[in-house]
């Protein structure tokens, strides 16, 4: 369910670095925190290039503590600007946040869980692990993949909860994670919860789809910020309008089109709904499809792309939008 946001004032009540480039930020709403279910996130009003934008952050843990929500933000040089802003926050700063809302709900009717985290994708899964352990007789395993322990927050906290059921993988030491290893910890009744960078999630989703297990037993949450290539500036030509615009490194193509006065329909802005799709006429580089709307087959065809999240690396792009009026 989608809920309308009620914006409330909150104060930064604590800041603590939990790993290299991962900062835990505690936000205390002036009127107290609401109860939430694990998997929930809050929206935060951030300032990017002097303009307000909205970013979503998963809540850490199973409940608000001392009236405050806890989130963790990874500083990404290649981000769209949200993390950079969040890292400027200091204790006692005031910001606007939404009530918690859940698009990644835990199904309680399951006896066996597998939580799979890639990097900062750990954030919604910490609370899930704690909740299942606390409330449920069920088995829970977690696979937590990261570069190395110094980059990965909450390892000790998770070890304390999960013991030997926490399966860590450090790609610096262990090499690339072989996705088929998830099946060592899954059976046809396992409920799988996945969150992580795009490439990681795609690989696991693909392996799951090719397995004999029910598709619906795998749930995942996207946060629309990662791709297969680092973000680069690229040029977009629109022959219909006889225009050429530039998409900056920290800007989405959708925003660049909007700023150039070219109307594109959109809704979710995280590559899920498909409303912002544009036709690709030509591309001299690699199209970095970062959405979850198009199928693998459609992505390979490179005929359409989602302007909200997808980008071009190593080249430029020629597109057409749906406008058919007079130019």
């Amino acid at each position, binding site marked *: *369910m*989608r809920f309308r946001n009620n914006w409330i004032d909150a104060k930064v009540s604590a800041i603590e670095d939990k790993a290299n480039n991962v900062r835990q930020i505690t936000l205390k709403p002036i009127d107290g925190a609401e109860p939430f279910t694990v998997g929930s996130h809050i929206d935060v009003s951030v300032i990017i290039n002097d303009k307000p934008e909205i970013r979503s952050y998963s809540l850490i843990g199973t409940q608000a503590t001392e009236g405050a929500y806890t989130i963790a933000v990874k500083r990404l040089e290649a981000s769209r600007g949200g993390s950079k802003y969040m890292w400027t926050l200091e204790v006692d700063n005031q910001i606007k946040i939404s009530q918690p809302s859940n698009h990644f*709900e835990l199904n*309680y009717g399951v006896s066996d869980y597998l939580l799979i985290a890639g990097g900062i994708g750990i954030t919604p899964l910490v609370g899930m692990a704690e909740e299942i352990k606390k409330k449920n007789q069920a088995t829970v395993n977690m696979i937590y993949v990261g570069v190395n322990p110094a980059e990965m927050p909450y390892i000790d906290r998770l070890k304390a909860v999960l013991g030997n059921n926490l399966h860590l993988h450090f790609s610096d030491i262990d090499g690339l994670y072989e996705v088929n290893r998830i099946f060592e910890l899954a059976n046809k009744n396992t409920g799988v919860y996945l969150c992580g960078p795009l490439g990681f999630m795609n690989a696991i989703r693909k392996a799951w789809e090719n397995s004999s297990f029910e598709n619906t037993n795998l749930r995942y949450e996207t946060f629309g910020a990662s791709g297969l290539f680092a973000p680069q500036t690229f040029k977009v030509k629109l022959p219909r309008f006889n225009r050429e615009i530039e998409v900056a490194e920290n800007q989405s193509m959708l925003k660049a089109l909007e700023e150039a006065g070219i109307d594109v329909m959109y809704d979710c802005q995280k590559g*899920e709904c*498909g409303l912002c799709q544009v036709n690709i006429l030509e591309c001299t580089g690699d199209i970095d499809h970062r959405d979850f709307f198009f*199928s693998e087959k459609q992505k390979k065809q490179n005929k359409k792309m989602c302007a909200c999240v997808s980008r071009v690396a190593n080249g430029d792009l020629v597109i057409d939008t749906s406008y058919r009026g007079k130019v």
Partner: protein
Amino acid sequence: MQSFTINESFPMNAWYAAAWDFEVKNTLLHRKVCNKPILLYRKKDGTPVALEDACWHRLLPLSKGKLKNDTVVCGYHGLEYNSDGRCTHMPSQETINPSACVRAYPVVQKYRYVWVWMGNPALADVAKIPDLHWNDDPDWAGDGKMIEVKCNYRLVVDNLMDLTHETFVHSESIGDEHVTEAPFDVFHDDNTATVSRWMLGIDPPPFWKSQLNKKIKTDEKVDRWQIINFQAPCTVTIDVGVALTGTGAPEGDRSQGVNGYVLNTITPMTSQTCMYFWAFSRNYNIKDQSNTTELRDGVSRIFFQDEIILEAQQIAINENPNREFYNLNIDAGAMWARRITDKMVEAEQQKNQ
């Protein structure tokens, strides 16, 4: 001090009866519980399912769609959902939006009712289902119905927690002057309240005389009891019966009498409507189906009298917006029930400061 007259709140973290067992089939049933629309159906394997009755996409009630085996198909654009509430099909696209789902409520069938938990699913403990075992205990026989009453559910609980009203509302069947005159005791703990009333050495009212005669042919005087037990937030069981005077019923020997349980559980639909599930179970003459039917229809007529009173009371509350109830000595049980419920609501509404 909270208003007794207009306090309409209900706890979310509780089991509420959403339907009788037989009402839930492999077909779509709409119900409203705690202001939320829910969709009930039974999977082919017999397990009940309770989903949010609003499509993820455009909020059309899914109950307006159809069931394809265990899959719900929205009647507007054909989105499909499995029994966990996850979307399994979207029109005109090759993928499914990862956030597409409707909420699946914890649901359990027990004591002939289908119970749903509308609050935090992590707290849904089956052990918290109110005890209504007389409904399907082989030593007891009975049946009941559900009525939708246009009043706040607390008014029904009030009604059941004090049976003085029997004398006036049900004078031809179960009410007589003894019910208003006999003394009563009120006890309570954190989750329950009990009102107990014994009427010793009386002539049984017509209803009880006929029931006792099914077991013992007699014109003797009886001891009559009414032990009302409230289980938070809205279940009331009433242990009722009569036994021949002097045979030890008040001390615990009910062998020379007949015993029934009036089983009531009330589910808030909105602040001004509720589903009132009731049943009457007895421990005598239990193989006599015609007795069961007769009792169900008899109680049904009696409860219709309550329905008229309760709906008129709700209208009166609305028409007298600034009036508060007065409370009498006889309201102690109802007031404990309200206070226990208020504490539940308060505890779950408390923000984490």
